[in-house]
């Protein structure tokens, strides 16, 4: 029997899969349902200080190899979100609260409220294009990443996981900046900047024109990011981007991830994907004679 358990910054998981932020995680009912379907933990939608409607539709385009989205961070705001987290926690779900904000001070406030709700950790969505930090996207400034991480660390007692953007020349230095600022783990990657155009209408499909690419298309980009980050830091890495099978998950684990998150695959595989991925991870590990998920972590490094 392969031991599927893993542990990220002291959070024990029954298996290495997590629900990725932004997918079926805006309501307590859905968070719990996904946990019950087999996810080792569930990450909430990124929640900000105030309710936000997000962008007008179309916000999602189904494309070859994944999804393009520009939902624009719709969320009920941190105050109303407590009830949703409580509902999920009442059902014994392991919940990680994702937050966004416009600057370090606001990040600290929202994260502190999220921690109050009883989440196991907070994840920082640094890829928010609305929240400008130092004249660019937060996720594209190492200083902003460090500053926000530090502010949140000072404000909460649970582990803090900054989530990095792949839209940078080199991702590892951002992970290093976050680690130095006290991060307990790194989540990588968020979506990749992209666009889809309708030839017949000669216009971008998304109301926001630009969006983020997710799904199988970005898996090799995410695996490389995790591989690079693993070589650069000592804190755990949580891999995300295009996981839809156990073999995908193993690519991330062997690249150095301690756990993987799954989002877009829910659109193609349903929420049964968590159990299916876990099952295939166990079967491949069994086949190649690795006794546990922990033994797979980082195995692709020399």
């Amino acid at each position, binding site marked *: 029997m392969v031991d599927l358990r893993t542990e990220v910054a002291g959070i024990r998981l029954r298996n290495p899969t997590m629900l990725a932020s*932004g*997918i*079926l*995680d*805006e*309501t307590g*009912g*859905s968070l*719990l*349902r996904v946990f019950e379907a087999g996810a080792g933990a569930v990450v909430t*939608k990124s929640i900000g200080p105030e*309710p*936000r*409607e*997000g962008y*007008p*539709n*179309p*916000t*999602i*385009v*189904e*494309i*070859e190899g994944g*999804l393009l989205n520009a*939902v624009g961070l*719709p*969320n*009920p*705001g941190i105050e*109303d979100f407590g*009830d949703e987290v409580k509902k999920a926690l009442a059902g014994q779900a392991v919940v990680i609260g994702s937050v966004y904000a416009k600057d370090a001070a606001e990040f600290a406030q929202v994260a502190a409220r999220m921690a109050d709700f009883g989440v196991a950790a907070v994840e920082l969505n640094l890829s928010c294009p609305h929240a400008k930090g130092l004249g660019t996207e937060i996720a594209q400034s190492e200083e902003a990443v460090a500053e926000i991480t530090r502010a949140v660390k000072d404000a909460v007692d649970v582990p803090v996981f900054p989530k990095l953007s792949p839209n940078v020349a080199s991702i590892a230095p951002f992970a290093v900046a976050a680690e130095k600022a006290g991060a307990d783990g790194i989540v990588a990657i968020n979506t990749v900047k992209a666009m889809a155009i*309708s*030839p*017949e*209408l000669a*216009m971008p*499909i998304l*109301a926001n024109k630009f969006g983020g690419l997710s799904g199988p298309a970005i898996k090799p980009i995410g695996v490389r990011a995790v591989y690079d980050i693993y070589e650069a830091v000592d804190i755990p890495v949580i891999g995300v981007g295009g996981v839809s099978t156990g073999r995908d998950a193993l690519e991330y684990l062997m690249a150095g991830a301690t756990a993987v998150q799954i*989002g*877009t695959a*829910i*659109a*193609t595989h*349903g929420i049964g994907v968590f159990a299916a991925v876990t099952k295939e991870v166990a079967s491949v590990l069994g086949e190649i004679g690795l006794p546990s998920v922990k033994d797979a972590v980082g195995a692709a490094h020399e």
Partner: protein
Amino acid sequence: MSRMHVVPILDKVRESHHTTTYRFRADFGGQAGQFVMVWIPRFDELPMALSYLGPVKGITVHAYGDATKALASFNLGDRIGVRGPYGNTFRLQGETVLAVAGGTGVASLIAAIEGFAQQGARVTTALGAKTAEELLFADRAGASGEVHIATDDGTRGFRGFVPALAEKLLEKHRFDQVITCGPERMLRGVVDMALKRGIKVQASLERYMKCGIGICDACAFDDKLVCLDGPVFDGEVLAASEDFGKFRRDKSGRRIPI
């Protein structure tokens, strides 16, 4: 995955002063009860029931807010985007069926009404609208069985709300299946009266949607998703629901009383 099909409008039929049917060709399937996401370029993308199945599909749209009003000004040959079909379907099980439709709700029901009739069931339709001019698909429903009409202002048929008409029909005749679509408060009434009599009932819900494919959680309803687990729900499920007829989610995801 279902890619966006950008297709010209092949036919446009004015059904009432505010409601229009748009027909288009799309090479994806579609069964009774399913919906498509309709991209009205420069305005919005909205869920709409398939009021016509087959290769030349149709949607029947109430020009209600900005986007649906903009759509009303689209001409033949103008292009819209459609992706789908999404959602579950009406189970066509039953010999004697009562369909209870309010307003544009009949757009979601009409394919089921025709489907039941085609497989030999006896279908009675209770069709409601504010006023006679706004009645939709009375002819199509009539071609599939008996039609009883209710208008709020009494300009045609029974004066009053369609659930009241439905209740009369349930008292007079034996039915083994009720299907319904319309405003959620109306659905609540129809579901209650059917369950009270021990009759199976399926209701199609309309909730705010973004993705249509079960990932964004915008259409969350209890711990279900209207776009994926619905839009058609069994009466028992609805009767046990905390949200049905009481709470909805706004665009930000806040749960607010209806």
